[in-house]
């Protein structure tokens, strides 16, 4: 098996002080391969650790325990040239369409600087062509966007330019953190379509971070459900959303307000009030305090990942009769069933 492009190996990330620690990510192992042109969503509520995963993968913070590896090497040990390559190959689209722009410069900067630094064009006219091409792919016209300052454009236009940047750079991996949550409904489809295009046409794997299961369902192939830093369920997105097995996933899916007045909210499932108690150390399954199917075994130790199908794994004692997958093998569910 070839070295994965980017991976987390037994990564734990803890924030806060010694007296009041918050475990954002708990012993997570996850690998993303270069030649795997699929879109994998990592979904969860706030506090689930999904954004932390993104930040760790991008090297914006370091793990408390474990390693983040780029082509097999820990990020902290990369030399200057290798670090540059890391930056070239791994790109991102962030949530806030305004914050990614330096208000001092025109929006062209967002596109022209990487072109220059990564030597993607040999002349300024070539660079201009690249920019116009990428903008067209997201439905923008260069005369309406280039030459303007960020505050002169709408949120939707700004986010589309950020996506155009990703298209232009054709990275080996694109990490997107809630790319459409701050964009109007009518524009979401355009942006998601552009991302899907990048994935299908250029084979770029996309790591899609979100709490919105509807857009996740639409764009991705696989999904990983996180709760308080641990994996609850993972596998094929169709199976999991249509037929969730983990009680937490069931809760999430039933809480989606489908835009159809005839599909009842909650789907009849009973709602449990979320705990008002502060986060404290839990010895067993993290979801146990809120789980309607809780059993005694759930408090002993966190459940293993049980494989229901080749492309569907659940970390829940309800399925303890199924075969166990080692947590290090999480990526093995991302296969065609």
């Amino acid at each position, binding site marked *: 098996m070839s070295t994965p492009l980017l991976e987390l190996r037994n990564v734990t990330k803890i924030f806060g002080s010694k007296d009041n620690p918050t475990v954002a990510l708990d012993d997570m192992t996850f690998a993303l391969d270069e030649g795997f042109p699929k879109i994998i969503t990592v979904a969860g509520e706030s506090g689930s650790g999904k954004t932390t995963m993104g930040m760790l993968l991008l090297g914006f913070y370091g793990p408390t325990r474990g390693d983040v590896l780029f082509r097999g090497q820990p990020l902290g040990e990369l030399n200057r040239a290798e670090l540059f390559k890391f930056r070239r190959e*791994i790109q991102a689209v*962030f949530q806030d369409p305004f914050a*990614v*722009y330096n208000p001092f410069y025109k929006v062209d900067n967002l596109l022209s600087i990487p072109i220059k*630094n990564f030597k993607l064009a040999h002349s300024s006219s070539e660079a201009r062509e690249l920019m116009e091409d990428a903008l067209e792919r997201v439905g923008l016209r260069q005369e309406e966007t280039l030459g303007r300052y960020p505050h002169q454009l709408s949120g939707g236009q700004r986010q589309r330019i950020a996506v155009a940047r990703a298209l232009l750079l054709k990275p080996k991996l694109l990490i997107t953190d809630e790319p459409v949550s701050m964009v109007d409904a009518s524009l979401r489809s355009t942006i998601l379509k552009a991302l899907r295009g990048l994935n299908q046409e250029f084979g770029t794997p996309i790591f899609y971070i979100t709490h919105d299961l509807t857009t996740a369902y639409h764009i991705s192939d696989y999904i990983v459900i996180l709760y308080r830093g641990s994996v609850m369920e993972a596998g094929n997105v169709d199976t999991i959303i249509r037929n969730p097995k983990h009680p937490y996933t069931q809760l999430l899916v039933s809480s989606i307000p489908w835009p159809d007045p005839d599909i009842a909210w909650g789907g009849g499932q009973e709602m449990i009030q979320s705990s008002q108690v502060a986060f404290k150390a839990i010895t067993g399954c993290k979801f146990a305090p809120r789980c309607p199917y809780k059993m005694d075994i759930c408090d002993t130790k966190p459940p293993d990942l049980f494989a229901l199908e080749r492309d569907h794994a659940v970390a829940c004692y309800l399925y303890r009769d199924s075969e166990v997958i080692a947590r290090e093998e999480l990526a093995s569910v991302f296969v065609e069933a």
Partner: protein
Amino acid sequence: MRGLGGFINYLRRNPALGIGLGILLFLMLFSTVGEMFIDPDDAYALSTPINEVPSAEYPFGTDSQGRDLLASMVVGTRMTMTIGMIAGVIGLGVGTVLGFMTGYFGGLIDTVIKFIVDVLMTIPSFLLLIMIASSVPDPDQMSIVQMGLILSIVSWVRPTRAIRAQVLTMRERAFVMMAKLSGMSGMEIIIKELMPNLMPYLAISLAGAVNGGVLGSLGLQTLGLGNLREPTLGMTIYWLRYYNAFLRGMWWWILEPVFIIALAFIGFLLVSIGLDEFANPRTRRTV
């Protein structure tokens, strides 16, 4: 803001900045253009009859050493402002370099500089200045530049702290993350991404440092720690106290330097307020 017209238009909406700059401009003109209307030699002792009340011949009156106070004010304002500028520019320069380095890169340098800054902020800087000024050989022969340099020993502390604080917040912003993803190095990010956004804060720090320098020099000179010959505003105050201007009712000698100092202080204050408004606009103009 396009050009001068746009700038003047902006000043209408930011009266603090407008008035502040106006005051400082006036003081600058007073001390530079003003020199064309006086004889600088008259600012030194034994040039005129002593203790003259303001009159047509001596519009600002004269002091007990025979200085024409109009000439004295003109020359003195220039000198005091120069001292302030030296202290301010050096203070800002050092503060910018240290503030950006420690704020952005952190690490050991940050811990060391932070410690020094914290210590210096607790030591009353004025006492420190007195110690340094009085240990200079021949303090009464001190030049303007020398005084400025002494003041710059402490004028870098606040700018460093202020700039570091701004850099710490800005460093976490998404556009800095984007810059990293675009292959920019740390120094490039500091110069091209962070600095342009911090211009208003740098300007505020400059105003504060120059003001601090002026006040510091006034303090030292009022105590007699400075060149006794030169007619700086601080020395004028030293002499008016030495010669008991209060008891002798020489109101003109007292009011003139005090008024100019007050004007300068208000000018710097208004400019700081105005720049703060510019950096954090309360009313967003865009839709």
